[in-house]
């Protein structure tokens, strides 16, 4: 019998209650209105002192949450069978999940600060094509998690190149230092998004702030304090900068919490990332199961000359965290190393650097066509519709056309592609830039789409559907699109290797 195999149903550690408490509290926080509404209604409905009522409500909430966590622990059983992990759970709605070993793509683990002292870990099974995590084993021993990982490694189908009984030692590909964590925090798009939102508002601030100061009672008190108009503007700008700084600080803190001591290692054909300050996350991906590899640069990352890497596995179409393997920050040199490890000799040295000279441009008629579709047509319709109520002011809607031209040129300049016999690399973006690479044989189906205008000009959009999502190459010549499609079909149909 296998070391991991156990014919009896077993419970996890009683400390799993901590895990369930976390999940329940997270659920309450996510749906705060729905979860707490009955309790709030009870507080309002009952008579008596408000403090006592709130006290009772909190006591009820704590008892219910504790009871729910205990019940979920009590009704959770699992069994490691000969070829599957079986999980029985549920208090009222009983479910039994059978996770076949050959369907498991990877085993991921999470270890919070309490579990770390107790040598416990929460195991998540990442299965092909599932929309989320199919199963979890909360608070199991590190030894069990390790033996499960070993079991999955052995269950993997033997590939042609794996005939050799070699077991290379794990190599570290990347380690992130403190400076990198700060960079990750600073490149957080949420802070940038706020900045972008504030940007246009700030321009109008100067005009409207005067009116606001006149009408606001808060500012009338400032007037009494003899603060000038410019002083008030400075105060507002100061407040915005403080808010931004707080936001950036929160982003850096979040990066430290999630990626502290982040390391990326390769262990035979498994890429593994580890990191986290309080909760230590371990995420693994089998290289053979990677469908696409994308290197993205948001505007802050472009300034820092760094990339964010994302390797995607098969997913059911819904955005699933487990189907994405993320390397939050890499330098240009590391980008080449990681992509070479993932694609190996099958697609030697795909250059994922956006500035690579290998990229070819798409057809320039993309700009004209996009300008007509998204600029000229809507602007003309709006101007016509608004001409009667607004008069000549309606012509202002025509300003949308030069803006669309500008956007279209930006998008056009970002688009680029190159391919060889094994794979395709495509670059796109608007403010940021993203380069995505995949092997031809991993494609699930392929489409050529042409609008009436494209058909007239011998152009086409080529769309590749992969198990992790689709990739569209727009505005290439129909001849090239047809040749590439036929070649990709040939590669899919003649390849003997598994696509996942």
């Amino acid at each position: 019998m296998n070391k991991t195999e156990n014919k009896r149903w077993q419970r996890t550690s009683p400390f799993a209650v901590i895990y369930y408490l976390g999940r329940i509290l997270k659920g309450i926080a996510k749906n705060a209105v729905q979860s707490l509404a009955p309790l709030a209604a009870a507080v309002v409905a009952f008579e008596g002192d408000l403090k006592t009522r709130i006290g009772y409500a909190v006591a009820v909430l704590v008892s219910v949450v504790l009871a729910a966590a205990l019940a979920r622990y009590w009704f959770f059983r699992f069994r490691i069978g000969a070829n599957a992990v079986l999980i029985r759970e549920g208090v009222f709605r009983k479910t039994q999940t059978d996770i076949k070993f050959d369907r498991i793509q990877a085993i991921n683990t999470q270890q919070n600060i309490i579990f770390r002292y107790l040598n416990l870990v929460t195991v998540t099974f990442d299965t092909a094509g599932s929309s989320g995590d199919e199963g979890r084993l909360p608070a199991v021993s590190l030894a069990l998690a390790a033996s499960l990982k070993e079991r999955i490694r052995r269950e993997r189908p033997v590939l042609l190149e794996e005939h050799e009984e070699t077991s290379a030692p794990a190599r570290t590909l990347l380690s992130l230092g403190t400076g990198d964590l700060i960079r990750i925090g600073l490149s957080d798009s949420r802070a940038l998004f706020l900045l972008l939102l504030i940007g246009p508002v700030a321009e109008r601030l100067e005009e409207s702030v005067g009116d606001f100061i006149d009408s606001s009672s808060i500012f009338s008190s400032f007037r009494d304090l003899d603060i000038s108009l410019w002083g008030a503007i400075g105060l507002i700008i100061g407040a915005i900068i403080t808010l931004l700084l707080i936001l950036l600080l929160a982003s850096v803190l979040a990066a430290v919490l999630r990626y502290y001591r982040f390391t990326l290692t390769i262990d035979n054909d498994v890429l593994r990332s580890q990191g986290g300050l309080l909760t230590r996350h371990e995420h693994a991906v089998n290289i053979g199961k990677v469908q696409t590899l994308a290197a993205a640069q948001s505007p802050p990352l472009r300034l820092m000359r760094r990339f964010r890497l994302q390797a995607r596995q098969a997913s059911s179409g819904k955005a699933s965290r487990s189907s994405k393997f993320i390397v939050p920050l890499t330098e240009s040199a590391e980008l080449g190393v990681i992509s070479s490890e993932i694609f190996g000799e099958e697609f030697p040295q795909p250059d994922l650097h956006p500035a690579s000279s290998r990229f070819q441009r798409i057809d320039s008629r993309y700009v004209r066509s996009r300008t007509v579709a998204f600029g000229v047509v809507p602007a003309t319709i709006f101007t016509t519709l608004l001409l009667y109520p607004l008069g000549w002011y309606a012509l202002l809607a025509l300003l949308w056309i030069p803006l669309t031209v500008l956007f279209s040129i930006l998008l056009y300049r970002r688009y680029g592609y190159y391919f060889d016999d094994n794979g395709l690399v495509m670059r796109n973006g608007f403010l940021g830039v993203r380069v995505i690479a995949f092997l031809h044989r991993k494609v699930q189906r392929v489409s050529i789409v042409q609008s009436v205008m494209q058909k007239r000009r011998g152009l086409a959009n080529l769309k590749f559907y992969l198990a992790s999502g689709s990739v569209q190459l727009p505005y290439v010549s129909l001849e090239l699109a047809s040749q590439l499609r036929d070649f990709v079909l040939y590669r899919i149909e003649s390849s003997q290797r598994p696509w996942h």
Partner: protein
Amino acid sequence: MTPMFENLQLATDDLPRIETIEWQRMAPKYVYRRLAGALLTLLFIAVGMGVAHALLSIAAQGGESDVSFGWLWLGFAMLALLLIAWPFISVPRMFYAVRQRDIVFRHGVMWHAVTAAPFNRIQHVEKSSTPLDRKFQVASLQLYTAGGSSSDLRIHGLPAKTAEKLRMFILDKIGGSIEQD
């Protein structure tokens, strides 16, 4: 042993080209199936508008109704014209072809699309037909590939018998169990 690595040079001109294949048309009755569907939709809208018109007229007997049904009925007539004409425009532009290793579907009026789904990527196949489909002896075939609903290929308007034959042929190709209807 060194890892096996294939990198054979190919003459791309010798590859089988989709442009050279012989396309099959959809079931001839599919136009009438689509027309029947359009007429049912129009009937549903007309009844709804008629009831609303009557109720608002009764309610506004004392005064004048705010809703100008003349324009709404004109809009309805234009929609009816489009929905009735559309099957005669779109169905003749739908084709399919089955090759040794894949199935190809061509469709679209404003956007012309040619999609090829290799059999060795199809996970399972489903034949379906609505009561209206059965009345006109047509069926749809849905080919499921990995990657969620956006990756699935749906071919409507196949003759019912062809759809069943295709289902069995594809199941045989993908190595699934065959259950005859």
